[in-house]
């Protein structure tokens, strides 16, 4: 079952407490996985809670479906998969999830330095962006391969 289908099921069967708990946990795990891909650590509890709250009520893009739970279970590099998916279709459910997580953390004080540069850093800033440009090319190639290997549609 895709995550999107699972989300639909969650909404359709609000009385199923066991399924609701399972989906709650899967969204928490998803928040941690995506947060680690972005920032190298699991998500703080408030971010995880907000992520679950948001995703349970969100209408995610229906296509292309990305079987995130399966990819997570296989330990796949979702940052690479997201970039490859985004190149194919900018509106996809994995990009939406990363984007949502970015919003949730950006407004928090502990992430301020991740998004805002307060010091003059021409060389450091230039180098950082250049490194990420090269790294993104690698991630794109890797992501395209992962889409094929894991048959992500």
């Amino acid at each position: 079952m895709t995550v999107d289908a699972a989300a639909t099921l969650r909404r359709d069967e609000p009385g199923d407490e066991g399924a609701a708990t399972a989906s709650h946990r899967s969204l928490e795990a998803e928040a941690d996985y995506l947060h680690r891909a972005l920032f190298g650590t699991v998500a703080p509890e408030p971010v995880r809670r907000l992520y679950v709250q948001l995703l349970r009520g969100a209408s995610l893009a229906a296509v292309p479906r990305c079987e995130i739970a399966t990819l997570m279970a296989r330990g796949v590099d979702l940052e690479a998969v997201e970039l490859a998916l985004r190149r194919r279709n900018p509106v996809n459910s994995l990009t939406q999830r990363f984007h949502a997580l970015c919003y949730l953390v950006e407004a928090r004080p502990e992430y301020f330095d991740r998004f805002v540069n307060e010091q003059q850093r021409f060389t450091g800033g230039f180098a950082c962006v250049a490194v990420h440009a090269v790294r993104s090319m690698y991630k794109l190639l890797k992501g395209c391969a992962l889409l094929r290997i894991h048959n992500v549609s």
Partner: protein
Amino acid sequence: MSHDVSANVVVVGSGPAGTFSAFQLKGRGVLVLDVGHVPPARRLTGNLYRLRRDPAVTPDDLFEDFIGPQFESLHNVFRPYLSPKLKAPRMRFVTEGAERLSPVDAQNFRAAMSFATGGLANAWGAGLYRFSSADLAGFPIYSADLEPYYDAITMKIGISGADDDLARFFGPTGDLQPSLQIDGNARALLRRYAARRAALNRRGLFLGRPRVAVLTREHDGRPAYRYEGREFFEPDNPSVYNPAYTLRELAGRGEIRYERGWLVERFLEQDEQVLVVARDSTRGTPRTFACRRLILAAGALNTAKIVLRSNDDHTARLPLLDNNVSYIPLLDPWRIGAALEPSIYAAAALNGVYTGDASPQVIQMTLYGLTGALRSDYLFDFPLSVRGNVAAAKYLTPGLTVVQLFYPDTPTPSNYLRLGEDGRLELRYATKAATGLEGRLLKLFRRMGYLGAARFCRHLEPGNSFHYAGSLPMTATPQRRYQTDRTGLLGGTRHVYVADGANFPALPSKNHTLTIMANAMRIADGVGRSLG
């Protein structure tokens, strides 16, 4: 339905047109009818960036103001594009209830309608520009007809600006307040422009400071702007003009009556009075107001809807004008990694005008920095991996400028509105071909050292400018029911006037809000004279 003689003049709507119609007729028995949504109470005050660093502000407080309890700021992640100026938690009231109060059936057009006190001006960029005679081509009025009203508005609300290269396009500078401070990004752009001014001017590009209704000096009891940079998050900074201020002032002094909670649906002329049929916007209870003159100022779309409903006309197609918008992102490579400047005005930093041969008409542009928005608003416009995008947002934002182009519009048969059988307003707008202007401008900005590429330019869906007009156009000699004469009088009526952008027969590139205000005052003056 019972009614009583409610007022000499009923004004429908409280946006720029409604407010300045009422202003001009103050003390003469004016009743303003409006749905009148208001912003939620302010929680945090202070500078956008200092708040986010303030240990006394809790993450929950920041979340409430910047993201929202209903995750309002994430609108564009899951739903069709909404301007960043309309989606923040305290800005959502601007378009609140529009889908219920005035549903539309739109194709290729994203209509933004406001039922808030002050209308869409709650989320405006505050740019105010006088129309020249060239801008008024096709209008049955001249710039001289509007000049006294432009002057009066400037004195009333306070407009800041500068006597620079754009003064020849924007008009007199005598009564202006000094222009707003600009950040290092805009200063660098102006320096580079100054160094190549002659060559750029020869190619048709002119840059300068914007004319904005933002105070740089205390004026009329309102304070000077404090560079808090929260234009994307709050609608009621007293230094940034909002028609709601004038409306409250007039109502507070008893010079007009302002009744909130009424959605005007139609009118009916009966003998020497006009009956205005409204519905309670929450309970749905109908009520009829009577007046001697009716001024429609509900916005080009809703005014047209009221007129069509009044005629029970589901077949007429009325013109629909919109300033199509495109964005050109530019990067100043020398500002990569520049330190944050927290004290900013987050809306228009600079203006530009293009008069070159790539466009048959003068094109106006607004230049923005991106430091006033959340980085997440444009994070996925970068082409890198998500981690790369976060780094790019951090280090490239200080050097990013977005040029927003506004395209002029004239009536064409394929762009129209109609009242559907189901009561929804049908909006149809044919896609316009790209003009190639973005490419020409990119070349000119590259001459100033900016990096940009056509693949990053973006044409928004029509309607995203919020600049709508033309549905009931003014003509010197109205031939049809859905035209207005130069006094704003609606064809086929004796006492119904149209005072908003609906009566513009064409839409130049220049922002039309100041002209809507001035023209509304002009029309209200005529209404006042007709009352005797």
